[in-house]
């Protein structure tokens, strides 16, 4: 095997220089203060907004759903208009289990993720073929077919009426779901946080770097010897499984599931959340989910019929003003602030 000859005999100073590079990347991947602040907010919200816990549980569920799409869209670069297929399948799986007496929540989540993961893996080969436009059509088609199937199978899914009689057992046999949604809130936030940790870890792994590489330049990745399709299939499957987990979580926390979870609107909504928050930023999906749900809540209070109009206006404005979504906007703001501070310090110094 031909090896790269060392430029100079490996001196101690050289070794230190190279170790410093590893150290640099390690520091770059470490937790930032704003991240800690971000995850303290849900805890603060529990005490400060006790009347909004049902709404905030929805934010957690949709944030989780958006996070799963961000892995596919923002990191792997696969565009999908049918991500609700996995969300819905996970939701119905958990719902049917609970309806038939298997209401244990944790295993329900796992089964929801498993079912969606299997569907994701099976359909990934269709999705991998072709370009962005065909991917849009294929993902959309799969989701529509699933919705129609759920609609026709009334005996199983309850059709348009939704799945009735879902009874979820206490979490770990201890915490019962209460009327005020406290348990549901803590449960969904905890699941969101754990999944976030998982995805954060994945995108900082060598595999995560390879995904970034594929998104940035597929030709080069092929020339580096990456089995590109295999890598993308894994990402798509993980994203599908996590969407199924989000769907299962929705069913368990609302004790209801209907065709709505499989609708085109759901796929579009989650895509909007990721884009709004900033794709490929890890926090973008959660922030976009929060922004959209809160905007929906506030605006529908002001004008019940036209709230979508205002969301549309805000979205267009954001696309023009900040291509990287809300997270991109915040990053630009921070950069401008630190530049300003640097300039002030310089002028004071001089």
């Amino acid at each position: 095997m031909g090896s790269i000859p060392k430029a100079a005999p490996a001196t101690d100073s050289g070794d230190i220089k190279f170790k410093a590079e590893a150290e640099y990347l390690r520091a770059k991947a470490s937790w930032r203060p704003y991240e800690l602040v971000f995850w303290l907010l849900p805890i603060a919200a529990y005490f400060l907004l006790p009347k909004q816990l049902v709404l905030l549980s929805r934010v957690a569920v949709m944030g989780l759903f958006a996070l799963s799409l961000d892995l596919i869209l923002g990191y792997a670069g696969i565009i999908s208009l049918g991500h609700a297929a996995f969300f819905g399948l996970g939701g119905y799986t958990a719902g049917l289990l609970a309806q038939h007496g298997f209401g244990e929540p944790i295993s329900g989540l796992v089964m929801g993720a498993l079912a969606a993961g299997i569907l994701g893996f099976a359909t990934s080969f269709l999705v991998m073929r072709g370009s962005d436009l065909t991917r849009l059509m294929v993902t959309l088609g799969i989701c529509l077919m699933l919705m129609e199937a759920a609609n026709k199978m009334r005996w199983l899914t309850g059709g348009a009426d939704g799945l009735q009689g879902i009874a979820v057992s206490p979490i770990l046999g201890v915490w019962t779901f209460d009327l005020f949604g406290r348990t549901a809130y803590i449960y969904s936030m905890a699941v969101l946080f754990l999944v976030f940790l998982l995805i954060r870890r994945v995108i900082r792994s060598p595999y995560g770097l390879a995904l970034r590489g594929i998104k940035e330049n597929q030709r080069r990745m092929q020339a580096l010897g990456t089995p590109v399709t295999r890598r993308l299939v894994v990402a798509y499957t993980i994203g599908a499984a996590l969407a199924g987990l989000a769907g299962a979580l929705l069913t368990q926390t609302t004790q209801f599931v209907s065709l709505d979870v499989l609708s085109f609107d759901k796929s579009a909504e989650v895509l909007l959340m990721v884009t709004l928050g900033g794709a490929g930023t890890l926090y973008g999906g959660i922030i976009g989910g929060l922004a959209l749900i809160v905007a929906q809540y506030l605006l529908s209070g002001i004008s019940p019929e036209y709230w979508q109009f205002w969301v549309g206006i805000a979205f267009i404005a954001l696309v023009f003003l900040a291509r990287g979504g809300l997270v991109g906007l915040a990053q630009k703001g921070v950069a401008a602030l630190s530049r300003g501070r640097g300039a002030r310090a310089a002028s004071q110094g001089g």
Partner: protein
Amino acid sequence: MGAALETRGLMKLFGALAVANNVSLTVEQGARHALIGPNGAGKTTLVNLLTGVLVPNAGRVILNNVDITDEPQYRRVSLGLARTFQVNQLFPNMTPLESVALAVAERRCTTGRWWPRLARSSQTIEEAAELLDHLRMLDYAHEPSKTLPYGRQRMLEIALALALQPRVLLLDEPAAGVPEGEGVELYDALAKLPSTVAVLLIEHDMNLVFRFAHRISVLVSGSILVEGTPEEISADPRVREVYLGEAAHG
């Protein structure tokens, strides 16, 4: 030990046009071999046939005694065949350190792993840093690739291929677009390539070819016209006619 890379009667048709016409080329172990030819001679097609981007209509490609004609692109890389691109194919938003670390991780077959953190793979990162240092790129290690000066981007092209520690390296016009006078570091880097690596250089820049290559093949209209040492090639009247003559006029 046989040749590092060999093609036998390679054919590629685009419709009725034979862009590779019965090409038999042998690159010896550790060779410094150049492939030259006028525009449209089929040089890039040949690179694509060798690396597996295109499938030949007939003929075989043999890498270190292994027939790789039917292997997909990524398998050829793991068998020791690396390439650079005529037009930069970089990761625009990744830094050179990240890019080369990715290439090193690919070679070590660790990019399928999604649990260990990259930042803990010290060996991979240190190897990437060492290679960048070797190519005098370490000062640029943390800047996004898209912001690098063009000459540095060309060097990063080579660094990405070298990180794979290939047995055979295909350099597709490494000097393309590099302004005169800025080629010094490139020449330097090519001169420092490990002697165990067989290099096939596809190039327009005759200065570089005659400085670098010990053996030259001339490709014209999809066929090998002649092959020989630099002296033989520059003295060959046919080559003068189709190639050097044209260059002298142009």
